[in-house]
């Protein structure tokens, strides 16, 4: 773990991401300073996952630009987007984090295997290398996926609801890993729903409801008034809404 330069900031410049003409994110601008630890909070349909996918490059903005300081970005999607029935071992799944360094053909080296074992031990799954992914519990799977994130050695880490349906002990173990990433001055952005967790562990918060409701220090963002404003956002898009006339 390297102290030193802050790594992996992200800048959003007037970003709109629309599905079938309806914006999931509407003209969002702002900056995740490198080395910061930010929670992304907002009601369902607020565009939180869309934001992460736009940063990764999985979705292309309809207008505006996303600029990342580094292309070493690690992204943990929501659990439902992964195929846990695949007959692979835990070590295979963790080593997938190394694919960008190894490419699509080079075999894993001894040091990669050692790193995988160390990462598994770190998340409390020491000795699980040969187990089948399909045999893991929901919490163990998330631990293994955090080990995979550790192997990517990314500058920017994006987590989409990493603690949904995860018990308290696993959550606190994995939060410790998040704190380590923060301590090594990586940029971490996590979509979360548990506001107490955000208040206790995340210095910065972005409150979204398709647009930025508030963005800054967590205690100033998560006020009753701001949360009420975010909640008032309608989840349904309006079929007959006027076309947006801001510059495309």
């Amino acid at each position, binding site marked *: 773990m390297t102290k030193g330069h802050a790594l992996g900031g992200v800048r959003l410049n007037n970003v709109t991401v629309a599905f*079938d003409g309806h914006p999931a994110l509407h003209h969002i601008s702002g900056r995740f300073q490198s080395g910061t630890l930010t929670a992304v909070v907002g009601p369902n349909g607020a565009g939180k996952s869309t934001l992460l*996918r736009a940063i*990764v*490059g*999985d979705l292309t903005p309809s207008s505006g630009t996303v600029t990342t300081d580094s*292309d*070493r*970005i*690690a*992204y943990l*999607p929501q659990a439902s*987007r*992964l*195929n846990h*029935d*695949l*007959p*692979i*071992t835990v070590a*295979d*799944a963790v080593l*997938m984090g190394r*694919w*960008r360094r190894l490419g*699509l*053909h080079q075999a894993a080296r001894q040091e990669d295997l050692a790193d995988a074992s160390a990462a598994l031990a770190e998340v409390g799954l020491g000795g699980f290398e040969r187990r*089948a*992914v399909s045999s893991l519990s929901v919490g163990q799977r998330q631990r293994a996926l955090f080990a995979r994130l550790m192997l990517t050695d990314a500058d920017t880490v994006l987590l989409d609801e990493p603690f949904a349906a995860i018990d308290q002990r696993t959550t606190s173990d994995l939060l410790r890993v998040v704190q380590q990433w923060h301590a090594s001055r990586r940029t971490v952005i996590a979509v979360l729903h548990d506001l107490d967790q955000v208040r206790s562990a995340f210095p910065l918060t972005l409150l979204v409801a398709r647009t930025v409701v508030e963005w800054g220090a967590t205690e100033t963002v998560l006020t009753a008034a701001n949360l009420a404003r975010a909640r008032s956002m309608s989840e349904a898009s309006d079929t007959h809404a006027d076309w947006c006339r801001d510059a495309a």
Partner: protein
Amino acid sequence: MSVLDALYALLIAPLVDFAFMRRALVACVALALAGAPLGTLLIVRRMSLMGDALAHAVLPGVAMGHLLAGMSAFAMVTGGLIAGLTVAVLSVVATRTTPLREDAAFAGFYIASLSLGIAILSMSATTTDLVHILFGTVLAVDDVALLTIAGLASAVLVALALSARALIIEAFDPALLDVGGVRSGGVWNGVLLGLVVVLLVAGYQAVGTLMTVGLLILPPLIARFWADTLEGQVAAAMIASLLGVYTGLMMSFHWNLPTGPAITLGLAATAIASALLGPVSSVRVRRRQRHRVA
């Protein structure tokens, strides 16, 4: 006649006595070795029915080749490749540019393609030709056909080895390969579907395009009940497929059955038996009452 003589007559003599049986066996072994790993990847990616859809999709190209050049292997293989790859590409593009899911896009394109194929065949082919195209005939495997089959199957195997890591990573987490700005989604899917088309076209002369689907899907289904790792399943699928083509060929020889169905029925029976009695996750294993302490 001793038991050994009987076994010799049953399993070995047809190969010693008839050159076309030897060629058929080599062709089927090539298809089996390429089909087993390809089918395993299709199944773990939940695309089992794509093989069937593509088998129907290649028909208009094969038929067009037949219309233009008669029973010419080269024309029919080329036509089949073009038709199959066109349907695969159109479906992938439709999936990426419309809200249609991949299976829906495929269902639409393949039935259109099949209809076109039947319309073309009605202009030219006799029923015998049609049966040969759909279900194959070992008698059709001459030296040129054998080289075509072996060459295409080998190419599939090499291409699959080169793209295996991407296909497996994407099967687990479709977003992982995207990170870094380049969206990979459609590309690897397209590669896999393209390889399926090549194998189906390779197989049409020996066992027919439809029956090649059997070599693609059934061995991995059998393997699912014999091994629980991906590598293990690929190995088990290859072994099952090799045994299946051998027994199928012999059944087809002794009982005068069409080769494709003989192989496929044998593999299907093995799949059912494996699902009921196999050592991994079979009905027998799951019904066992005993359990471990942890």
